[in-house]
């Protein structure tokens, strides 16, 4: 047989370098086990509806009506749909040219971008320009677009937090750039240290890397920490000094579980700082319909907002967006509804508030249940989940466990997580998928399993963990190998 046209050897090297643990080895093993009939609890990805969270009623009503506009002509439509959903569906259809089945403007429907701009204006107290807002098929596509615009080659570096959400490392690898890590300090609640930032940049520059951009994830993923206004100021100032564009991943802005540090957008802080920085510092902010209390991951809806990006660059970014024609229109409508939800007095308002509050309050409770649950386990230390959707406990693996992992040909936390999976069906992502300090191990799980299932899950975890530690700890005084 002749050599294949495309074999592993002749693949783009950058593709081979890509790692994305969230759907990597653990997930694939979990899927295999599920096929064999084992009950699996998938806590590997922030996918609320997959774990029983119900979609909010109002947006589903509106989008269903938009999908099938002939329903609006039916005299009985009011039997199934409230009047405000009907009105809103008509409103969104009027923003389109041809309904949900036509490509929209490559940046997204102007009417919806206007709603997003108004939302940002209300949230931050500073006006936002719809022309600088691009809707995308999920925030991830927007992140990829921006990184592809910035990265010219391996000489270009992007500052990424460690631990990070591995979209960033994957995208940087794919586009042939260099990842410049900066560390979040676990003992300081995953805090950010500007000195560490400076050192990372110096080291990179000493290696001939031009550092171009800095990524912040606020609230953090996998760590959950919420940045304070002071922190954001430092970061913005730092980027300004170092001539970096700040990429603000703010997809978890609705997921905040403590009151000391509410969400404040990077843009608001920047505008508060006033000129010249507010007029010069380049910032791109990302948001999504996948997280928050909406959890509409499957719609693939997101946007990015550009600040201080010159018009000609915006044109180039538009040009690349136009090659993919347009983001999907149903998700654009979800985005419009998210930034413009039912208001007091609307028929659907009470239900909407009840559903939303229910979800958020439950997430807050689950964040605590999980943190406390992990902290009650042997050799496990867990920072509180201040925000986002994850818990990232540190697992202090005994030396014999690490040895066993080596013998099995596995990275230690992968070894632990595989054992956890086989014993309990809990499918997590090993901390090595996100980055961590050498010799320190974690796993990431979500706080998304249903509240009523949580106690059992934590009991199951504790049983496995404590038995694992029992097995591998050298507590009977035998000499270590």
């Amino acid at each position, binding site marked *: 047989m002749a050599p294949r046209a495309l074999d592993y050897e002749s693949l783009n090297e950058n593709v081979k370098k890509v790692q994305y643990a969230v759907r990597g080895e653990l997930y694939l093993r979990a899927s295999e086990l599920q096929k064999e009939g084992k009950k699996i609890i998938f806590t590997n990805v922030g996918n609320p509806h997959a774990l029983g969270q119900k979609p909010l009623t109002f947006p589903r*009503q509106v989008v269903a009506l938009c999908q099938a506009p002939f329903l609006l002509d039916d005299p009985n439509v009011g039997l199934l749909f409230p009047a405000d959903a009907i009105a809103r569906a008509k409103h969104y259809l009027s923003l389109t040219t041809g309904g949900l089945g036509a490509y929209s403007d490559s940046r997204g429907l102007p009417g919806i971008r206007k709603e997003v701009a108004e939302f940002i204006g209300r949230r931050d107290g500073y006006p936002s320009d719809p022309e600088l807002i691009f809707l995308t098929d999920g925030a991830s596509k927007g992140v990829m677009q921006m990184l592809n615009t910035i990265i010219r080659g391996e000489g270009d570096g992007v500052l990424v937090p460690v631990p990070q959400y591995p979209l960033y490392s994957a995208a940087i690898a794919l586009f042939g750039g260099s990842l410049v890590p900066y560390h979040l300090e676990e003992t300081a609640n995953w805090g950010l240290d500007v000195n560490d930032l400076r050192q990372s940049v110096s080291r990179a520059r000493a290696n001939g890397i031009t550092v171009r951009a800095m990524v912040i994830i606020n609230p953090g993923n996998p760590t959950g920490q919420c940045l304070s206004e002071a922190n954001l100021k430092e970061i913005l100032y730092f980027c300004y000094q170092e001539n970096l564009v700040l990429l603000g991943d703010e997809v978890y802005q609705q997921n905040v579980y403590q009151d000391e540090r509410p969400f404040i957008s990077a843009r608001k802080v920047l505008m508060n700082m006033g000129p010249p920085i507010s007029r010069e510092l380049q910032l791109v902010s990302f948001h999504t319909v996948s997280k928050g209390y909406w959890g509409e991951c499957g719609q693939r809806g997101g946007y990015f907002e550009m600040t201080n990006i010159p018009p000609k660059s915006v044109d180039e970014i538009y040009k690349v967006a136009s090659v993919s024609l347009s983001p999907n229109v149903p998700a654009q409508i979800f985005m419009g509804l998210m930034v413009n939800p039912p208001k007091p007095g609307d028929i659907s308002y009470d239900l909407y508030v009840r559903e939303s509050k229910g979800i958020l309050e439950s997430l807050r409770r689950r964040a605590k249940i999980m943190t406390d649950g992990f902290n009650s386990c042997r050799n496990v230390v867990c920072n509180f989940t201040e925000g986002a959707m994850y818990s990232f406990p540190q697992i202090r693996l005994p030396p014999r466990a690490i040895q066993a992992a080596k013998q099995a040909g596995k990275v230690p936390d992968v070894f632990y997580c595989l054992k956890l999976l086989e014993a309990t069906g809990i499918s997590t992502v090993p901390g090595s998928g996100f980055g961590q300090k050498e010799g320190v191990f974690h796993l990431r799980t979500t706080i998304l399993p249903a509240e009523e299932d949580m106690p059992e899950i934590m009991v199951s975890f504790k049983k496995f963990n404590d038995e694992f530690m029992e097995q591998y700890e050298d507590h009977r005084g035998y000499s270590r190998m």
Partner: protein
Amino acid sequence: MRRFAAERAKDLIRSQSLQRQNRRRYCLLSPLFPLSSRSQSRFLSSASAPDPPPAMGSPPVTLDTINPKVLKCEYAVRGEIVSIAQRLQQELKENPGSHPFDEILYCNIGNPQSLGQQPITFFREVLALCDHPSILDKSETQGLFSADAIERAWQILDQIPGRATGAYSHSQGIKGLRDAIAAGIEARDGFPADPNDIFLTDGASPAVHMMMQLLTRSESDGILCPIPQYPLYSASIALHGGTLVPYYLDEEAGWGLEMSELQKQLDSARSKGITVRALVVINPGNPTGQVLAEENQQQIVEFCKKEGLVLLADEVYQENIYVPDKQFHSFKKIAHSMGYGDNDISLVSFQSVSKGYYGECGKRGGYMEVTGFSADVREQIYKVASVNLCSNITGQILASLVMNPPKVGDESYESYREERDGILSSLARRAKILENAFNSLEGITCNRAEGAMYLFPRIDLPQKAIKAAEAVKTAPDAFYCRRLLDATGIVVVAGSGFGQVPGTWHFRCTILPQEDKIPAVVSRLTEFHKKFMDEFRD
């Protein structure tokens, strides 16, 4: 030591001193204090530390600092003429009567529903029910939706874990939906399809990008593309840093594909040190509309097998065929009929929900069927797909409906068939009317549109017109298109956006305006063209 380009030194020195001034001012005005013990910042007050060295060069996201591949990429379908048209449209809105036409007619893009084509009712019923499954239990729903739509929605929802249409699915797409698509492919081709070969994507375009990404290692990697082509291919190749290797379709032979031309271009590229990785074939063609003859397809399969090329078969227009003497055959079917299988040829077939008779562009639904690749390559494809988690669920559901529409005997079959045939026969009529119209114009010849959604007429522009175009630094075909827009409000795309034999001029016009608008389109076009020729005739 920092190094900077000599020509930037002056600017840097100027901007450095400015920045230093500003920064000093900033440090004094806004002290930053560390917070309490729960603080996340251990920031040393900037007032006490010396000023760090100032930043170098232009800001990161400016024209001279962004990825040059982005600058290189072009996409005429939504290029300059469209922006101008949007401006004119706005002017008309604010000031009716300000132009010699009442409306802008976008004939630049294959976007049927934006020009009045209606969606297929059954598909929309199923999608609406999947979007809002809680109404499936209600008795009122029976009155608003057809029974088989309700049944199909249940079927689909049962294939989605937890009936959660808002959850990320498997990165290749929901398994049950892939099963349905594989069954549809098998029914179409008569050969089995494996659901594990299918990757559902947000439209066919992202799938094309994925393949280009896998195939392109450097500028020395080339992809054979038809000229004229749909500029997604040229744009994608530019974005991924590869080289486009053109092969010319023969206008005189109805835009036919000549094997000798393919071989010639391949050999020429190789002699220049290009490793040619793949062959793109668009069938039915865009912008040209030709449908390949079976024999031609067999030759192409042999060619790819012999030369070790991946065959990238863009088959998104497979349901748009307007002539009785041609039929769509998928390349997979052709290869299998020749006795070839996974060990003989690497083949990727792209399909979309945007075209056909369904025209659901805004949903962004599509898939690629990937066959003839080794397991480790497939793992890599899966890995890249997984970084984006999954494609949108609505698009996935729609793809399964398109490949598995109502059948004879289903409650909705008759109305579905009527809608489908109505659209397809109308498209065929419009294709013919516009083809004849173009052929009746002085200096214009137009091949028939055997399929797809476009006409690609050729204009023999008089020398006078060419000179006038050069005088305003515009390509002659773009000059003609601009004049057409200004006089009639009709938006078409200049042939240079698709590629053409140098010295020939074309434009691409869709056949999509609704049938009742076609007479007006024809008369406006005819009137404009006559005036244009009167002005520029040599």
